[in-house]
């Protein structure tokens, strides 16, 4: 995965510092500069990078270190913990309950992969034995219903939508109620793309969430997004109760740092990543093991607990 490239750069910056003979202010600065550059190249938000740099420096405060303390270890630990902090949403993924109707609503910016991810998510759960279905509540985008319908048909998943109804909230409610009556366990609702600058679109999303009362709201984000990621993600989080994140298009070459920055904005874990256009190109994601892999450190746990 491309995200690993970021990990390699950070580890090599840490290693280089380990190799330099004296660890003074200069060595620490050089290392932090290198780490920052790797993060910025990966599109991590500039403010978050600056913060990380200050925090590490503060924690390591070289002057005050007593002689004999292992500076290298301490610095590595500080960098690692700050990165974990950045990637730690502070919340667990929403648990869905089998045997009950779980409504899951997908939201996100235009073209980020909501409709495709909805279908993949449905397919993934269907194969795990869930009774799943799809509702198309995007009445705006040309061809949106056909797109969902064709995907659903391919994966043999029941779907609901309309070519004529123009009120997305109405369709969402109708679809959800119909499938609830039929005892579906996972009712996945696809919505139109939207962005924070259009308040009417955000109000529509809030209204839909209020009406269908989803168990989880999944925020879908494209891995190639740059510095605008954080603000957009934050706006979605502030508007509705985002509980999970899916990062898409990781089969490309983007390093995904913009989307990673979004984790701290949404305070929600990344639950899946999209790795292609096909139905089974969806991988479950575990943030903790990701950070460990990101840093390519077998000895990570040692660093954190020591």
């Amino acid at each position, binding site marked *: 995965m491309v995200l690993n490239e970021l990990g390699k750069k950070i580890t090599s910056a840490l290693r280089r510092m380990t190799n330099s003979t004296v660890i003074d202010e200069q060595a620490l600065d050089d290392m932090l500069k290198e780490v920052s*550059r790797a993060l*910025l*190249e*990966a*599109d991590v938000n*500039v*403010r978050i990078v*600056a913060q990380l740099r200050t925090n590490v420096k503060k924690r390591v405060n070289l002057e005050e270190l007593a002689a004999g303390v292992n500076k290298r270890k301490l610095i590595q630990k500080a960098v690692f913990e700050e990165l974990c902090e950045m990637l730690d949403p502070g919340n667990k993924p929403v648990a869905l309950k089998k045997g009950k109707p779980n409504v899951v609503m997908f939201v996100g*910016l*235009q*073209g*980020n*992969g909501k*409709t495709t991810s909805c279908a993949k998510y449905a397919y993934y759960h269907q194969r795990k034995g869930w009774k799943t279905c799809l509702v198309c509540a995007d009445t*705006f*985008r*040309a*061809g*949106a*219903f*056909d*797109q*969902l*319908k*064709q*995907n659903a048909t*391919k994966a043999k998943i029941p779907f609901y939508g309309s070519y004529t109804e123009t009120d997305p909230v109405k369709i969402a409610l109708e679809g959800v109620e119909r499938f609830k009556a039929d005892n579906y366990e996972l009712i996945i609702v696809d919505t139109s793309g939207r*962005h*924070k*600058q*259009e308040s009417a679109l955000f109000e529509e999303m809030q209204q839909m969430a209020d009406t269908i009362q989803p168990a989880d709201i999944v925020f879908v984000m*494209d891995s*190639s*997004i*740059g*510095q*605008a*990621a954080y*603000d*957009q993600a934050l706006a979605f989080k502030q508007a509705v109760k985002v509980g999970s994140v899916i990062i898409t*298009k990781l*089969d*490309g*070459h*983007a*390093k995904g*740092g*913009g989307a990673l920055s979004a984790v701290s904005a949404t305070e929600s874990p990344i639950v899946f990543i999209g790795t292609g*256009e096909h139905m089974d190109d969806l991988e479950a994601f575990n943030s903790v093991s990701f950070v460990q892999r990101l840093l390519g450190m077998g000895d990570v746990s040692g660093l954190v607990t020591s």
Partner: protein
Amino acid sequence: MLSFWKRLTGQSSLSKEDLEPVLQQFKTTLIGKNVAQNIAEKIVQSVGASVEGKRLESMKSVKSAVREALHDALTRLLTPKQSTEVLADIEKVNAIERRPFVIVVCGVNGVGKSTSLAKTCFYLQKHGKKVLIAACDTFRAGAVEQLKTHAACLNVELYHQGYGKDAATVAKEAVRRGTEIGVDVVLVDTAGRMQHNEPLMRALAKLVSVNQPDRIFFVGEALVGNDAVDQLSSFNKALMDFQKVPNPRLIDGIILTKFDTIDDKVGAAVSMVYTTGQPIVFVGVGQTYYDLRKVSTSVLVNALLR
């Protein structure tokens, strides 16, 4: 630090030491505005080289001298070298060669190719051109129906052969159909593809070499971060390597979409123009047919330095 910003003339000429912190600061500003990290670096480096050794004019701080030089450099970069107007060229081809003018849009997934193509159709119609749309995304679910909807709204003919067909062949047939019914322009939509997906990039090169379009527009979104550079250089490289003709056709211009979603983080424009040397032909500022604009260089430069 302040002494750097506030340093007045009469002192020495601008030295590397004076410049370094100021350049770093501007680099961070550009990255914060979503300019790709290595491009921001190259731009400030060359600006630094251009002012180093110069004497400060009276009452000018280092910062404002650098800002001025950067303003000039960005303006030079973003000012199109040739006209971005296509109408005259369309008329020339129609009159002299007695055939439709062919425009292909390409780019990665979900950036707004099909929507921009529909907007371009509307723009051309407003200027009295007769248009045919060719549905050459024969892969993505709903792609054909999406264009059917647009074609119906815009009252133009859509040429399509459904899904699964070879895009190059569909395009060829579409141009033949366009010639037959006497349109001025054929707009060719293509499937989104990741820039390192070799089979798909080869297919795009084939479509281009078979059809020899008059314009190839790369559609990129203003949201994209550092990946912008790789997207454009890889699309161009694939067009160069895979066409297998003496004079391969390359990207002629950029359509920058979702400009309404990024506030003042307009840096993707810099990354894209810097990478290709090609101009931004249109920006997309929303989801309706009216939301296609020309962008002025000064608007971009002012947003970058704000």
